[in-house]
């Protein structure tokens, strides 16, 4: 039997309310200031570095995103680091906050489905993050034009916009994770701690662990060891395992999209390079093809986590 009415009734209202909450919350302001400050510091370093090579580089704008100067990481490096924190900050108390304020049963007693509340909260978080990313993007482009004096080309703009969408998908993964935890755990503090724990694990520990695990699963072969080379089997396993982390996927996407010279992600054999003009850039379409599995992975991760949260929320008891 079909249920009556639309699952999206009230969705717009929820989105607007949540957006206005996010935009005016002290939490979001602090995070924004943090991001802008760190981003500016890294941009400043990048611009200094780039000044010397302005004339030679056809993709100056993209370099702004990716070039790093010690001790600061590159702009994308910082985004890869901060996006999860901001997304977790927006999502960790999405549902349990309503429980604890005792507003949930009151809101759900209005003529809307739970779908509208959950999807509205997710979309509002995503829109907030999108606005933040767009502002940062505009700042970077404007800063680049001002400091370097070179207008960006079409392909550069296109590539950086694709990067923006990928970053949004990356936001989605963490936002969906944070919201899932906010549904499962009744205490907001627990949800936040676990989300941050997952983030730390995936950014710091998993890269090392995946290396170790790969060596256990596929031990290095002696013939490669003698040559001082890693065995292909080990490397393959390591790549597979590392790609379970959204950070890895995001990093690879960024590499393919913002560095047009990237021809492959992961290990590549010499014979595969035959005929390639090493160092020359690929067209955007080809770069996209390289990064496509990673992009799909990020979007799929978002959907899987969101659906898990959705199912949990639909089955949850509303009473406090």
């Amino acid at each position: 039997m079909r249920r009556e009415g639309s699952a999206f009734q009230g969705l717009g209202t929820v989105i607007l309310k949540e957006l206005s909450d996010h935009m005016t919350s002290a939490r979001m302001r602090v995070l924004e200031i943090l991001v802008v400050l760190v981003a500016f510091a890294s941009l400043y370093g990048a611009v200094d570095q780039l000044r010397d090579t302005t004339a030679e580089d056809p993709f100056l704008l993209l370099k702004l995103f990716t070039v790093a100067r010690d001790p600061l990481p590159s702009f994308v490096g910082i985004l890869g680091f901060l996006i999860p924190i901001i997304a977790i900050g927006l999502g960790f108390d999405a549902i349990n906050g309503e429980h604890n304020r005792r507003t949930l049963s009151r809101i759900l007693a209005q003529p809307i489905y739970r779908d509208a509340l959950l999807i509205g909260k997710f979309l509002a978080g995503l829109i907030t993050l999108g606005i933040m990313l767009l502002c940062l993007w505009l700042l970077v482009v404007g800063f680049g034009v001002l400091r370097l004096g070179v207008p960006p080309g079409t392909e550069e703009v296109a590539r950086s916009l694709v990067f923006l969408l990928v970053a949004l998908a990356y936001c989605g993964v963490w936002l969906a994770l944070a919201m899932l935890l906010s549904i499962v755990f009744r205490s907001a503090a627990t949800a936040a701690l676990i989300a941050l724990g997952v983030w730390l694990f995936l950014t710091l520990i998993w890269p090392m662990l995946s290396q170790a695990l790969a060596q256990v699963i596929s031990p290095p072969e002696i013939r490669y060891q003698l040559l001082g080379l890693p065995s292909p089997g080990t490397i393959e396993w390591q790549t597979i395992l590392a790609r379970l982390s959204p950070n890895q996927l995001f990093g690879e996407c960024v590499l393919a999209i913002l560095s047009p010279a990237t021809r492959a992600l992961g290990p590549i054999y010499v014979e595969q390079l035959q005929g390639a003009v090493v160092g020359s850039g690929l067209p955007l379409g080809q770069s996209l093809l390289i990064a496509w599995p990673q992009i799909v992975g990020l979007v799929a991760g978002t959907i899987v986590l969101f659906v898990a949260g959705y199912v949990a929320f639909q089955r949850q008891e509303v009473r406090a």
Partner: protein
Amino acid sequence: MSDPVITARGLTKRYRNTTVVDGIDFEVGRGEIFGLLGPNGAGKTTTILMMLGLTEVSAGEVRALGQDPVRAPLEVKRRVGYLPDSVGFYDHITAAENLNYTARLMGIGPEERPGRVMNALERVRLHDVANKRVATFSRGMRQRLGLAEILLKRAEIAILDEPTSGLDPQATREFLEMIEGLKRENVTVLLSSHLLDQVQRVCDRVALFQSGRIVLMGRVNELAQQVLGGGYLVDIDVAAPAGVDLESRLRDIPGVTAVNRFGQFRYRLAASRDVRPDAARAVVAAGGELTHLGFEEASLDAIYNRYFQNQAKGGSRDAA
């Protein structure tokens, strides 16, 4: 009942192994104030949530305004207002903004919205603080704001879960007056509470819950009849012991169902009607001197206590 707006037939709710609501049947007529009584955890809130479609029904059925809340939840929630147990609001926005948000969720158009919100706030006497943040509100004010939400909805049924628990006597009195105001507008009110004197004051009929079952249901004086043996209590003090056996004479008065003697000079009669004139006559006829003739209607409190006492006695007999 001529026009039942809520009907439950064999309504049951089970969680894994425990049965929280165990096959209850009741009907509530239009414009009635119906009280759900019982100790905490007796299944009152679960019954309410099933009526609103906020929790699934394990067995049996419930209809609100002729609709199945499981199949047509939006329709039911559009016409039924719900004030949850210790209701919460968004603290960082004002009372009017809170109502405005729920008004949007109810689908009230933008041209009617401000008028209806202000009107609802006026009726619960919160219009002076309409633009104050809810964080500054007392518990009584929050409850009234919750009631304003039901008024805003123009609900045909108002379901109030423990609306007066934790309120001071003044706030309680005001709130009960507002509930009686709802009745005057022909709104059906379902009131859950464990504060018996309040329920007795406003409710037309009550249902007494005990571990998931309705053990008693009806008008208060009917219940008194059933449990106490009479709806009226008459206290008689005499100055000197009567010559003849006063107790048996009192028992012979038509309508008297029980006579209790306290000490030498005091009797308490339970009766199905007001037996004061007959009791006075009996005392005088027996040669006694009447010094006090007290009268009270049976309180729900007495019914409740007596019922559970009888239960306990019955229980121990069963055990023995």
